[in-house]
């Protein structure tokens, strides 16, 4: 019993540590890739090719003065960054990283991921309201509406593959893709999933809650120091989590291409790298959507599409499987 608890704790600490470090380096990767796409070099000063930049940034944020606006609701203002970061990390408890490398397996795994990641919006709403600033409030309002609607498409897009896998357990879903990855059976679902994932993580072209050209920094305008770092970390942790879900559901998780013997974890990391590169690539390429455009493509285009996808999957499954 105690040995189990210790083993579980060690696993959690390991995953948390690795995820925090990777997330910190994602910021470096993003600046570097965007730099090269825009014919710049990106960070170069700290360490070889700027490799120590995330650590310098972290130290800087850690030592910065922590400002709480005098008219802010202090308790909610302090809790908000924690409410953003905690769900972002809790999600990792059920994600499959390798055949034997995961913290725990739950029967409702995928569902749990959706539920917990939907809680991140509370942090955004709390931050926006508690700051007592109009930019923050506008950012939070946009964030709430956007995440609430795109969560629906994200969840509905996953139903098609779920019907094929017949399980909510993420390891079982990965096992069900031994022959063919679900992205080939469910291309529509994957496209909708990817767009919804961009919106859920507040990434360009859907970064309206923090649109810097109109709202200063949106919901985290008034935050500084470590609290700001929390929002930053949570954003990248969410990107990694949603990419992992996408890999597990559409790209066969840790399963590789037959014939190339590599460990499951390596396959997972390769796929993760590829998907995150696309995330960054999109940020460097596309302009921001207008708010009404965002809602229109969501409800009038993607929503009917996912419903049709569920219906067609059910029909095909009933007739041919």
């Amino acid at each position: 019993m105690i040995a189990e608890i210790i083993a579980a704790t060690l696993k959690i600490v390991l995953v948390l540590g690795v995820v925090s470090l990777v997330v910190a380096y994602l910021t470096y990767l993003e600046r570097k890739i965007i730099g090269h796409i825009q014919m710049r070099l990106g960070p170069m000063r700290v360490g070889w090719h700027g490799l120590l930049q995330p650590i310098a940034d972290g130290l800087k944020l850690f030592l910065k003065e922590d400002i709480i606006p005098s008219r802010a609701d202090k308790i909610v203002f302090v809790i908000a960054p924690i409410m953003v970061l905690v769900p972002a990390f809790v999600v990792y408890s059920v994600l499959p990283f390798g055949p034997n490398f995961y913290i725990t397996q739950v029967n409702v795994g995928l569902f749990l991921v959706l539920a917990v990641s939907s809680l991140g919006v509370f942090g955004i709403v709390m931050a926006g309201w508690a700051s007592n600033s109009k930019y923050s409030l506008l950012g939070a309002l946009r964030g709430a509406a956007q995440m609430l609607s795109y969560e629906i498409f994200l969840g509905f897009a996953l139903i098609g593959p779920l019907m094929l896998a017949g399980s909510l357990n993420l390891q079982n879903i990965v096992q069900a893709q031994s022959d063919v990855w679900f992205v080939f059976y469910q291309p529509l679902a994957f496209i909708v999933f990817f767009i919804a994932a961009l919106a859920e993580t507040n990434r360009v072209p859907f970064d309206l809650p923090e649109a810097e050209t109109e709202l200063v920094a949106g919901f985290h305008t008034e935050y500084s120091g470590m609290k700001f770092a929390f929002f930053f970390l949570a954003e990248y942790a969410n990107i990694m989590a949603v990419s992992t879900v996408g890999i597990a559901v559409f790209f066969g998780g840790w399963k590789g291409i037959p014939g190339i013997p590599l460990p499951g974890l390596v396959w997972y990391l390769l796929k993760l790298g590829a998907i995150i590169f696309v995330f960054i690539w999109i940020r460097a390429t596309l302009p921001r959507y207008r708010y009404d455009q965002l809602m229109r493509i969501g409800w009038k285009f993607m929503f009917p599409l996912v419903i049709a996808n569920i219906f067609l999957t059910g029909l095909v499954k009933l007739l041919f499987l």
Partner: protein
Amino acid sequence: MELPFFYLFSVGIIGASILMVTRANVIHAALLLVLTFFFLSGVYVLAGAEFLAVVQILLYAGGIMVLYLFSIMLMSVDVAVRLRQFHRQTIFAMATAVLLALEIWMVLSRGTSYPAFKSFGWGIGATPGNVEALGSVLYTQFLFPFEVASVLLLAAMIGAIVLAKRTIDR
């Protein structure tokens, strides 16, 4: 192993609920209600109802409460806090509370022998994760009530859209 967690969650539910109804600030009350839902879903997990626990978080905490906050955020809380907090309905509220307590006691004291509980045959925690069991029961034995509920929700949804659209057009 489960008992201390049960007490933890129960104390959490009761504590957060009491705090919730005594807050003057509506936003704080709404956030405490979310906390209550969390502890409640913890109790569901202990009872072996994982699916219900996740739905509790996904729908109530992640969906409905965000909408609540969304609308509360737009009002001026500073003014609301200064408004009268009690509405001199003590006697009526006490009567309702006593009635409710009696009803709960009536149901709980009879335990599972209560007629309404008898038809729900599958034991608590029979299978650790009961998504499959829930799905098959929902779509066979309880298909009719399930469909009735769906039609009701659809009607409510269309009604809401019609009401909202009418004010926009004017």
